[in-house]
């Protein structure tokens, strides 16, 4: 049975410690309810940017874990980021892909290739330190502690169902520039 995205996010929230989180698209509304803090920055309005933004944060703050909650449609928009990230080698980056096979926000049209696209092979081929698929919540919870400590960049393809909300059905939350400033302030204060 596919992983419910909100359940995966709750597991991450419980285990993340001081990790910076970078949600995008359909993980954004749920994440702001589950973890309404200022150690997260959401990517909406520039679909595809979460992976490289997370990598930049990871390179800047190597003492913290950075966890990207990417989407499969989003990653396809900047698929080259797999090679860019592998080349930059952020050892503290965990790149989680919430794979549902569709563009949920725009009405659930299939992504090119649908669920057959193998992102694990792509990440491994690009040069990520490790890459794996996880298909059940139990397995994800079991592997989460290792994902939060092992050397990265780590890529995980989570096989998920659709989220309850999308950025279009659950608008709101802090503006992007506010999130940027609050994250920056939080990191500065935590020196």
């Amino acid at each position, binding site marked *: 049975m596919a992983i419910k995205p909100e359940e995966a996010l709750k597991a991450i929230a419980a285990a993340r410690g001081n990790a910076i989180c970078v949600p995008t698209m359909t993980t954004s509304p749920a994440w702001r309810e589950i973890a309404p803090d200022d150690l997260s920055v959401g990517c909406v309005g520039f679909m*595809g940017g979460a992976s490289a933004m997370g990598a*930049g944060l990871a*390179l*800047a703050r190597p003492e913290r874990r950075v966890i990207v909650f990417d989407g499969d449609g989003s990653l396809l928009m900047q698929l080259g980021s797999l090679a860019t990230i592998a080349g930059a080698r952020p050892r503290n980056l965990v790149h989680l892909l919430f794979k549902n096979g569709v563009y949920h926000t725009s009405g659930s049209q299939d992504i090119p290739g649908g669920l057959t696209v193998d992102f694990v092979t792509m990440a491994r081929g690009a040069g990520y330190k490790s890459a794996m698929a996880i298909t059940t919540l139990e397995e994800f919870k079991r592997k989460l502690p290792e994902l939060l400590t092992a050397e990265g960049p780590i890529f995980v393809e989570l096989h998920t169902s659709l989220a309850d909300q999308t950025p279009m059905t659950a608008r709101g939350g802090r503006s992007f520039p506010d999130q940027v400033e609050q994250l*920056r302030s939080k990191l*500065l204060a935590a*020196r």
Partner: protein
Amino acid sequence: MAESIPAPLIIDTLKDTFREARAARTAEGWPASRHDFLGWILSVPDTHQKTVLAALDKEDSLRVITCATEDEAATMAAGLYMGGEPVMLMIQHAGLYASVNTLRGVAMDGKIPMFYMIGLLSREKDKDPKESRHSMVRFAEPLLDTFSVPHARLEGPNDVHLIPEYYRLSRQRKGPAVVLVGLETI
């Protein structure tokens, strides 16, 4: 008449720019970085600035990350900025056209300082870019004007002072600022 700028002059200016940025970072209260280079250059290799890129290959005090696309370079720059690191982008005009939505969504709407050096590949030495026969040269400045992105053109060695000035401007206005490299560097 425009002149080409030697790569060592640009490299030295970038080092000075990043030294100033690091001092500002320290004054702001950021802890010492866990690396010993001055700053990050995110590049999608630009033929127009290839002598600079070649010199950067031998330069330990600046960390260059080659990105697959300019979109990635801009979003990675945003992440580095949020984490307190000095960063700039080195791309070509074609990459500016390719990454306009990221420029808008990240640097402009996100109010994130983002300093670009953009090469005007194929710009004719004896022509104003507006009169170039190449659309990629002709439209770069009008595109930046359309988005109200401040920009200046490096037309020779005497113009390198624009690099730190526009870097500072990007920080002051919290948004993008651009210097265009008029002729191919030497």
